[in-house]
């Protein structure tokens, strides 16, 4: 189910339950517009903020975290304005992009400091729990200055979740993490999302967003290019042909048969596979089985070639 939806320009906020509510937000620096009239609302679950460098992802995330004032529009988190609202941080966790940590503090002391600053009743227990959560226990008593990039990332996440916030914002959280740590952190974020946390993370790496996010917000040139389930978004783009890759018992025969189908407007044989382009996703998936059966060809594999976020994304960027 999609929890993200692009609100139309001037619609009033409908569900008060939305954890994050962005209405007609713009942000400009001098005469450079970084974010241009963006509106969306988010509920619990994981949302990926995706866009090329310089698209305005960070600007948007900084506005969500109260570290940038919107030049126009309103940013509300848990029903409250994000800007100049220090009390809100009791319910928001933030993982900043820069990998800087206090080099002289041990990992444990850094998380403990965060717990103390949140005035938690039992800061030590909370710190221990958060450190365990990010799998940093073996290194927790070493000075953080000597941590690897991936360890610093996990340390920052531990400090951000120490107060178990209902909203967690992460700026490029997988930078420098090795594949195993990446999987571990993804699992952790999924678990938190399942418990009802609203998680927003930015990334320019499509594979991460694709694997983790149920929803995507695609930001291109400061504007919201798409919002929602990315497979769903893909299907909305009917003005672009879909491509399927097929493996069959006889590619050449099926190709000949498919050319006759009205939904198909391109067939190509390459390296033992058949590539078919169609204008109608649904009609083709229904028709292909029948055509294959009539041509007496067995279908071994049928998959959409360009369903990945990458192709959706490059389509949106180049549109």
């Amino acid at each position, binding site marked *: 189910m999609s929890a993200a939806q692009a609100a139309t320009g001037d619609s009033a906020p409908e569900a008060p339950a939305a954890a994050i509510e962005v209405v007609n937000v713009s942000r400009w620096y001098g005469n450079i517009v970084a974010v241009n009239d963006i509106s969306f609302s988010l509920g619990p679950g994981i949302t990926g903020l995706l866009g090329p460098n310089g698209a305005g992802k960070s600007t948007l995330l900084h506005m969500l975290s109260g570290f940038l004032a919107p030049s126009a529009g309103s940013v509300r988190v848990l029903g409250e304005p994000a800007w100049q609202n220090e*009390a809100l941080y009791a319910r928001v966790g933030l993982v900043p992009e820069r990998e*800087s940590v206090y080099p*002289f503090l041990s990992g444990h002391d850094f998380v403990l*400091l965060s717990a103390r*600053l949140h005035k938690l009743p039992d800061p030590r227990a909370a710190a221990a729990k958060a450190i365990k959560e990010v799998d940093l226990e073996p290194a927790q008593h070493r000075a953080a200055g000597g941590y690897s990039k991936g360890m610093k990332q996990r340390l920052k996440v531990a400090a951000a979740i120490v107060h178990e916030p209902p909203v967690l914002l992460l700026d490029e959280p997988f930078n420098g993490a090795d594949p195993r740590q990446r999987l571990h952190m993804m699992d952790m974020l999924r678990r938190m999302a399942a418990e009802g946390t609203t998680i927003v993370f930015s990334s320019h790496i499509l594979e991460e967003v694709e694997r983790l996010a149920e929803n995507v917000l695609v930001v291109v040139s400061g504007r919201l290019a798409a919002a929602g389930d990315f497979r769903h978004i893909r299907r909305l783009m009917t003005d672009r042909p879909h491509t399927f890759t097929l493996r069959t018992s006889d590619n050449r025969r099926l190709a000949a048969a498919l050319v006759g189908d009205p939904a198909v407007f391109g067939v190509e044989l390459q390296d033992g596979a058949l590539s078919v382009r169609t204008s109608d996703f649904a009609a083709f998936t229904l028709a292909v089985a029948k055509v294959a059966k009539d041509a007496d060809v067995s279908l071994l594999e049928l998959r959409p070639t360009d369903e990945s976020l990458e192709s959706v994304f490059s389509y949106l960027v180049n549109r």
Partner: protein
Amino acid sequence: MNAAIVGLTVRQLLGAKRTMLLVLVALIPVVIAAIRRFSGNDVDTDHWTATTLLGQLVVGTLLPLGALIFGTATLGSEFEDGTAVYLLSKPIARWRIVASKLVVAWGATSLLVLVSTVASAAVSLESVGEGAILAGFVIAVVLGALVYCSFFVLLSILTSRALIVGLLYVFIWEGVLTRLFGGLRILSVRKYALGVADQIITAPSTVFEADLGGGRAMFLIVAVTALTFVYAARRLRSWEIGEST
């Protein structure tokens, strides 16, 4: 005030190379006093101690330099290193963060300069109680450190070049312009500190004299500290994350 931030900031300052450099600089007045003493020069010692050693060297140079380095380091280095966001993304009123940073900078500056003041006065003066010179400068240093630190903490929020702007203030504004144009003395922290010292020192004006009255100096100390602190807290509330340089 926040105990966790105070503790963190103390650790930050203790580990910094700049602090070590400052401790060396703080020894210089003591060394100078010792050289003068052991070379047997005792002409006008009270006047030299009060006006040159404590007035020019300690209050005029060491105090602003120490306050500048500690004042800009406590918060400014967190902006520079990108760690400030860990403090600011907490449910703590921003004025408390400024207060915590200011208290540490003030304490560190006072400690550093007071050790230098007491040691150099003890070396230089025949009797430390002489004309309440030492007492006057102790109070002057503590109050001067407060105003300077408050101002420099504000500078570190306003600009990433706080250190050099502060140096320009200390050496061009206070060092040259206030000397040339007497009317500017109400905007010179050094003059406030010297005014306070003058108020307490009982020795005759041939020994030490300030060009700002003690009452006005006290008033300006309170007013400037309050204004810079309030403005610093306001600016920290509307602090925006920027590109790192």
